[in-house]
């Protein structure tokens, strides 16, 4: 599957099928700091992702100290 990552923006290929939680562990990402979006739909940690899916892993952390 194609996985879009941000900050910096880049795309990686990951072999499926696998669950969202496993994808985040594979990418070494903290599940509290991202959303996973399949197409234009949010998916939960137990969702099974297929090899043909387009996935965005969107960071949710933002902001300066002001």
């Amino acid at each position, binding site marked *: 599957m194609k996985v879009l990552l941000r900050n910096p923006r880049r795309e990686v290929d990951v072999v499926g099928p696998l669950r969202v939680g496993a994808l985040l562990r594979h990418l070494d990402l903290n599940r509290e700091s991202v959303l996973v979006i399949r197409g234009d739909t*949010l998916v939960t940690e137990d969702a099974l992702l297929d090899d043909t899916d387009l996935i965005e892993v969107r960071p*949710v952390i933002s902001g300066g100290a002001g």
Partner: protein
Amino acid sequence: MRCRRCRAPAVIEVRRHNAGFCSTCFLRHCAEQVRRAIEEHKMVAPGERVLVAVSGGKDSLALWDLLLDLGYQADGLYLGLGIGAYSDESGAYVRTFAESRQARLVEIDLPSRFGFGVPEGAAAARRVPCSACGLSKRHLFNQAALNGGYDVVATGHNLDDEAAVLLGNVLRWSTDYLGRQEPVLPEAAGFARKVKPLIRLGEREMAAYCVLRGIDYIVEECPMAEGNRHLGYKAALNLIEEASPGSKQAFYTGFLARGLPHFRPESEEDRGELKPCTTCGAPTPSGQCAFCRLVDSVAAVGESTPVPVPTRRRRARR
């Protein structure tokens, strides 16, 4: 995973509540949390006019959307910070949202109004960019609220923001700041009331809210914020949260209930007498307020000294 409320398939899990939600129930959950925060802390009274500080990011646009849906008279205020393409893109998201909701948007552009952007201001005043940015925002949001006759300024600070600030203040035992870390800063002479209606919602929930509501926002992080301490505190708290869901909320709400009352009196004692700024008239403990000193320091360096906006670098796991 199923929605805790209606048993439909869930689209998001909120681990600190040990719950999943479908789209409809999650949006309702967000609105309920904002309504509870406003009522619990008496943030906005019926009929009051609210000025929402909007940046083009998820939190402030979600807040504006939620306040409008809850029936508040909420106008937006966008401050152009002069951070190159990042500011251009942020402003575009805010204008698109305002137009889609037929909401009133007030804009102030720092470079065209005061002759500098955040990069130049930070360099001239020898402050870190987030400090110059925060100083400008606090001053200009307050002035805009007073000049526009608004009762309250609402900002998009969420649970993660407040927990990260709290962690920073505790690590340094900044007792004065701890005594002022309130969800509501009441109005006073020369100051509009300031409120944070998103304190019951986490950063991940706000991003999910925008995705589910179809609100486009700037996902990229501010290039000036890279490497700042605040982001490091958030990353540290998320490591704890991952292992122990609910820790951030317990940390922050526990502070409000059991920590803040101990620090509040000291903080009130520390506040000296305020006098009008000799340049703009805003209340300040010194002769000239910090924002006017920032403006003057840029003028002293020279207006034609543009500072490049940093390019983004790859960051480690957070």
